[in-house]
């Protein structure tokens, strides 16, 4: 008896359940239909007329004039402002605090977890991304909305110049970008001349104190140290950023320590207390925003670094 009842119950439950899924399926068919329609009309507005190549060697189609862009990294926001296209930015990340005008732009989450709903609502023609770190589904979704994604991945000062040129090209500001790069190159050359005769210092660059992080061969900061008349003692490691064991760090015994200065990275790690850098007072703080953002201000960072390492060359 009880079995009958439950059997009956099960059959009806199964029925209603399968109906549920049919309904959901139907709903989805409707969504797809409405959407196909809308996609056709978007392509007409943003008719792509030119192509550029990003750092992942991907061809990006762009309209003649880019009027609406979203930047997902502070360095790209800074470059856009530098080439005079700050007014074209309609969305930036919560880290984009420079220049001051950038703080008035709509925030769309942070670099690692941008909010895709907000981005689409802003109707950008292009989204500027700083590394390949973005999850591929994110790029795919933007592709489906016919929003271009431009990826930059600078590993050296020359790559940063390239980023500036590329962003100049995106916003049709090639001339201004060229001027900026020429000026930056002039300043870099001056630093290199001044430090060329100085003794090369073995530098440890501390990104964070706890846990101890530094830069490897693939970081543009390593290039920066070279040009400032130093050599990064961790430049033989082929990574961009890496955690380093305290034992190894202690054995490195750097001549100088540069701290990427931020709230939790004001002091050198305790393992350096007997190093020649600490004994000789060669511990320098440089604003993290200047040396960790591959944008135009990187040369300010370079100049500060060179002056710190070789004060005698700048007398």
């Amino acid at each position, binding site marked *: *008896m009880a079995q009958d*009842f*439950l059997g*009956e*119950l*099960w059959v*009806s*439950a*199964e029925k*209603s*359940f*399968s109906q*549920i*899924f049919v309904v*959901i*399926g139907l709903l*989805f068919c409707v*969504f*797809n239909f*409405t*959407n196909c329609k*809308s996609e056709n*009309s*978007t392509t007409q507005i943003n008719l792509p007329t030119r192509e550029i190549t990003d750092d992942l060697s991907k061809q990006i189609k762009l309209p003649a004039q880019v009027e609406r862009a979203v930047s997902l990294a502070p360095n790209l926001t800074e470059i856009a402002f530098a080439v005079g296209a700050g007014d074209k930015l309609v969305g930036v990340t*919560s880290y984009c605090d420079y220049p001051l005008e950038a703080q008035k732009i709509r*925030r*769309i*989450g*942070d670099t*690692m*977890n941008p*909010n*895709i*709903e*907000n981005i*689409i*609502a802003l*109707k950008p023609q292009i989204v500027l991304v700083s*590394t*390949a*770190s973005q*999850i*591929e*589904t*994110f790029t*795919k*979704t933007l592709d*489906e*909305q016919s929003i271009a994604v431009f990826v930059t991945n600078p590993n050296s000062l020359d790559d940063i110049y390239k980023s500036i040129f590329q962003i100049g090209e995106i916003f049709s500001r090639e001339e201004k970008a060229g001027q900026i790069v020429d000026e930056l190159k002039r300043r870099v050359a001056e630093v290199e001349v001044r430090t060329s005769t100085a003794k090369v210092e073995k530098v440890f660059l501390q990104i964070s104190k706890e846990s101890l992080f530094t830069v490897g061969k693939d970081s543009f900061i390593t290039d920066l140290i070279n040009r400032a008349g130093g050599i990064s003692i961790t430049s033989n490691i082929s*990574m*961009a*950023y*890496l955690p380093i064991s305290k034992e190894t760090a202690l054995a490195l015994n750097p001549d100088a320590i540069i701290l990427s200065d931020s709230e939790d990275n004001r002091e050198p790690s305790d393992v350096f207390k007997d190093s020649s850098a600490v004994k000789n007072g060669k511990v320098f703080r440089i604003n993290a925003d200047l040396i960790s953002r591959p944008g135009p201000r990187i040369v300010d960072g370079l100049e500060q670094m060179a002056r710190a390492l070789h004060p005698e060359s700048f007398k």
Partner: protein
Amino acid sequence: MTADKIKKNKKFSAFLSLGVILFLSLLLTIFIASLLGSEKLSFFELNESQRAILFDIRLPRILVGACVGASLAVAGASLQSLLRNPLAEPYLLGVSNGAALGTMLAFAFFAQIEFARPIMAFAGASLATFAVYQMAKSRAGMNTERLVLSGVIVTTFLSSIIVLLTSLLDAAKLRSFTFWLLGDLSQATKNGFYLTLLVAALGTIILSSQAKALNLMMTGERDAFDFGVEVKKTRLIVFGTASALVGISVAASGSVGYVGLIVPHLVRLAIGSDNRLVVPFSAIVGAIFVVLADTIARTAIAPRELPVGAITALVGAPLFIYLLRRN
């Protein structure tokens, strides 16, 4: 009509209407969730980009969340009955971690193949299930402590492999993975929805079809055998299906914890422990639970997001303690 039969009919219609009410509340939850988000949408005059946000981003995510919730709750409900253990839960047994490891391996070695992730997740979940079961069973049968301990061992072992793997990936990818490991629905896509829906629906139907056997298994494997249950076959079906459900969920959204624990317990408190009801009802309640949790994850600190697994654990753990104390 005898008094007995009338009583049964009454009970039957009561459960049926409860099912209908639950289903309507799921639809209502989905509807309300689709109104909420980091972008304000007015439902009656949607422009193009708003339509794209609703139909291409928000709704697929909500529906994937519903499927994930249903899958995990159904997997939890049937594992608890099969193992006669109220603490059997995909996340606590390490099954989710197995699926997570599978997904990560697929990401590292077969990044180009879209279907590699759910398949590897399923493989990982199955292996973890098998390992836990082998460790937990003994000649004297399987007691709660043994099972929980085996779960802890498998979970921590797999966690350590996951940590090893993430430290080999570069820093940027690592950060997005740590978010995903906590349970994150932000990568849900339409294609992902079709697949999760398919697996969730099939899995729920298959496990509901085993409900009668599961009811008998709850009294003990020997008794079940005496009643004509093919114990080995049932075990294989339940383990396999639960692994597929957990695998597809983890591939879609990482490890969303506590759903498989909280939801079946709530359902049992409300309607008793007959699996013919517990399994399908858990599917609906699980879907509601995850959709609600993800709505909080999407909106609480907008435009930034929280991982949905943090919300389910935050709600789930205290609720679970409360349930334990009430019993």
